[in-house]
């Protein structure tokens, strides 16, 4: 994907590999240590800590995904998945969380890091009559890949959607 100017970032590059140098201005402030194993750094992240932040999270995800070349129909799915994961943070953990978006190998990747435990993926969609428990099942239905792993200070959930 060719990357147009990224308005909220000092460094415009968030494509694969290129620009991995430390040209400054790349530190992402946030409550969590950056494990630094993958993805570019830059203005590609956002923190959230309250239900009233969720709408801003979706706006952020929409703008980033558009800039990264995703179609609007796919963005609707991406924002739903991210909304479910960030809601999950607010309902089941303390201290909020942080998201990051980037493109890797033709896929849009969103990392969600919070202080919660590893998420129990792999469960079926609850019945229509069930009051709750749908969030993670929705995420799994929508995304092309979902991973969860512990990272220093919490848990990372990584979702991938083909561009």
């Amino acid at each position: 994907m060719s990357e147009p100017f990224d308005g909220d970032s000092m460094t415009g590059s968030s494509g694969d590999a290129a620009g991995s140098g430390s040209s400054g201005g790349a530190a992402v402030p946030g409550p969590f240590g950056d494990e630094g194993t993958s993805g570019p750094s830059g203005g590609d992240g956002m923190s959230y800590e309250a239900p009233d932040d969720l709408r801003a999270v979706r706006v952020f995800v929409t703008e980033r995904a558009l800039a990264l070349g995703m179609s609007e129909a796919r963005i609707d799915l991406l924002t739903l998945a991210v909304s479910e994961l960030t809601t999950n943070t607010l309902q089941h953990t303390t201290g909020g969380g942080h998201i990051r978006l980037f493109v890797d190998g033709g896929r849009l990747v969103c990392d969600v890091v919070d202080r919660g435990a590893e998420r129990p993926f792999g469960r079926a969609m609850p019945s229509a009559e069930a009051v709750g428990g749908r969030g993670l099942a929705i995420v799994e239905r929508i995304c092309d890949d979902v991973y969860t792993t512990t990272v220093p200070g919490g848990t990372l959930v990584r979702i991938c959607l083909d561009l």
Partner: protein
Amino acid sequence: MGNFEARTSAGPGRITVTLAGECDLAAREHLTAILLDALTRARAVFVDLARLTFMDSSGVHSLITAHHAAKHTGAHIYVVNAAGPVASVLELTGVGALLRAPAEERRHV
């Protein structure tokens, strides 16, 4: 605050709750309270989703909470006019089929 809105209007034997904006965790308790209140006043509550631009499992939680309250008293709650991403969520979860209004009722909405 978000941009979520809910407006209630009463007709003969029914209440229509018209939603607009985005329905997420920030709106959940508000929506649940409105739906439960409507169910105390009418045996049929229609939730019009035409102007709702986003809903996630938080909104589904409210709808199903109201659905169970309705079952308790012999009332019904129906969703109508879902489109786009809102319709996708209802389909993905099976809740759209569960809360679909009977055909003869849909014509009046």
